[in-house]
């Protein structure tokens, strides 16, 4: 036993530990939380910029930001392509176009990208590409999904034009009309292409 307890009368008076009651939670509080969370979600949807690291106040989204980019004409087209590329293709092929080993081939100085036979290039994102393909002397054997099938013609044309003119590449632009023509011509095709089929195209 430690010190003389009488030296501190307060110690023995009313030193029972508190007890917890079991009153039920007020329902209005739970409802308030749900309403707040819903409202907060709405707010974030409108003003949140959807987790994009490029959207700063006062802009609302990358699309919103695009309207303020100080270019016109070809510059705007390529800029649109860059934005679409970073949203759709960069995940696998890299923002620098170098690709990732075992995942996606490079676009930099790639014969498939800067080819004059633009039909080959347009078909790859439209229907996808399976099986062995040689890119810059390196063999690849993967499956690329039809990432461009859902894109509008203008966006697909912009992203392909961007790839053909970025990272040191230099090639002609691809127009939305070309993309529309290829889409119409391959409308019945559901299977992904193979490299052999594409090489056979004229």
């Amino acid at each position: 036993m430690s010190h003389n307890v009488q030296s501190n009368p307060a110690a023995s008076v009313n030193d029972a530990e508190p007890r917890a009651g079991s009153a039920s939670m007020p329902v209005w509080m739970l409802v308030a939380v749900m309403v707040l969370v819903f409202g907060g979600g709405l707010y974030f949807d409108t003003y949140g910029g959807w987790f994009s690291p490029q959207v700063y106040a006062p802009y609302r989204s990358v699309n919103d930001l695009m309207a303020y980019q100080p270019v016109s004409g070809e510059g705007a087209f390529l800029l649109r392509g860059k934005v679409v590329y970073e949203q759709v293709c960069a995940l696998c092929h890299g923002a620098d176009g170098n690709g990732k080993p075992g995942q996606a081939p490079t676009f930099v100085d790639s014969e498939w990208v800067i080819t004059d036979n633009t039909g080959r290039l347009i078909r790859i994102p439209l229907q996808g590409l399976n099986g062995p393909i040689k890119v810059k002397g390196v063999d690849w054997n993967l499956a690329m999904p039809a990432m461009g099938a859902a894109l509008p013609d203008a966006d697909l044309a912009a992203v392909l034009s961007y790839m053909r003119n970025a990272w040191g590449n230099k090639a002609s632009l691809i127009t939305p009309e070309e993309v529309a023509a290829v889409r119409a011509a391959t409308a019945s095709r559901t299977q992904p292409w193979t490299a052999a089929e594409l090489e056979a195209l004229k």
Partner: protein
Amino acid sequence: MSDTSVTSQPPIPLPSQGEIDASCRLPILTLFTGAALWLLLGAIGAMLASMNFHNPQMFADNMWFSYGRILPAAKTWLVYGFGLPAMFGIALWIAARLGKTLLSNSGAIMVAAKLWHLGVFIGSFGILCGANSGHEGFEMPSYAAYMLLIASVMISYFGLLTIHQRNETEMYPSLWFVIAGLLWFPWILSTATILLHVSPVRGLAQFAIASWYVNNLQLVTFALFGMAAGLYFMPKLSGKQLHSKYLAFFSLATLVLFGSWSGLTLGGPLPKWMGSLSSVAAVFVIIPVLAHFDNTRRSCCIKSSAAEAKFFSLSIPMLLLSVLLAAVGAFVAQTHFTLMRTAQSVLLLQGFMGLIALGGIYHILPKVTDIKLPSTKLVRLHFWCAVLGVLFIALPFIFGGWKQGGQLLHPSGSFAEVSKVVLMHIRMASLGELLWVLGSLLLALNVFGTAYQWVRGIIRPVVVEGTSTVASQLEKAGVKA
């Protein structure tokens, strides 16, 4: 002995409250005496900082007292020197008392507490000498942060061990908050230390992480420990039962979920989504505070005869006001970059955390040392100094900050217009700082008075023994001369 079953063994007697208190004595004395000292220094430091606005020339030749050095040092003294040690002490004592077990490894905890205070000492004087880290709310240099990290890991470990070894299996809600707080603080401190000091992240990521850490320390950790204290002391001192443990659990769940996300500001240099998410969370965090308020108001102890009871009752409205200000401030551009942010911080740190820490110290210290406080009148006086002090700082800052924001949003030619508007309010707040200094002196008197009595109580028998005459010693030994 083969038929000896567990049920036939006599039950191990639970330690008495006196024994539990005695096991907490050394760590709590270390924590609280240091806390009282740092509070005094912190209050004086804040006072000196505000002197810069009365007379900018005052410290023009003095490096240590210049605003940019004395203010971070004062904030470090308040938060790391006073706040966290007091909260740790309260948490450990509550854990031991509610678990009806002795505090585990109290010697090791005392060593950790000493390391902590050493870290605060080195860190705060490091700031004064120019080793300010640049991160607001975490200004101490890296070497001090490492010391605090080791100390806090030790304190948390032994605190959680105490809870694990509890004899009372039914967990009172305060224990939940203590567990969460003891878990969370080393986590956030280690994250901040590693990502800002050991291997600093690049660019603005530092700002995001520092803001996250500071918010999780000042709002979440202090609210976790503060709510633990409120849920424990208010029913205890009022004699009434805590209203609802389900509401307490709801407060805990919503506090950890929403509170930890708040802290970043809208419209800053961070990408929009961070500010938006954080501001939304700042609104949500009103819910746990309201729930806690609702829970404790039914066992409000403001009419209790104990001198420290009022501290706990007034702390919760301060917290509520602070989170309301933060929620409004997140979305109203007029409050950005103004003194309103400081007001919200004062209400949180000195209003809520400070009052709880003070109430806890005044309640626990006499119990663990078994020595009555030198003067309960000073305790009551301190209550008024503390509350009025906070109000005299926060209210001018709120009104001044609002005006400052108005001037910032409507540019005139010269920035002097903004400074002019602010000056009078900062000067008025100096009165509040003075009251806070006075209050800290009262705390120091009581705490060091108790410590002195305790030391005297140890030394006196030894001295008496050593200085008694040979005759009386022989008589004691039963040898007749």
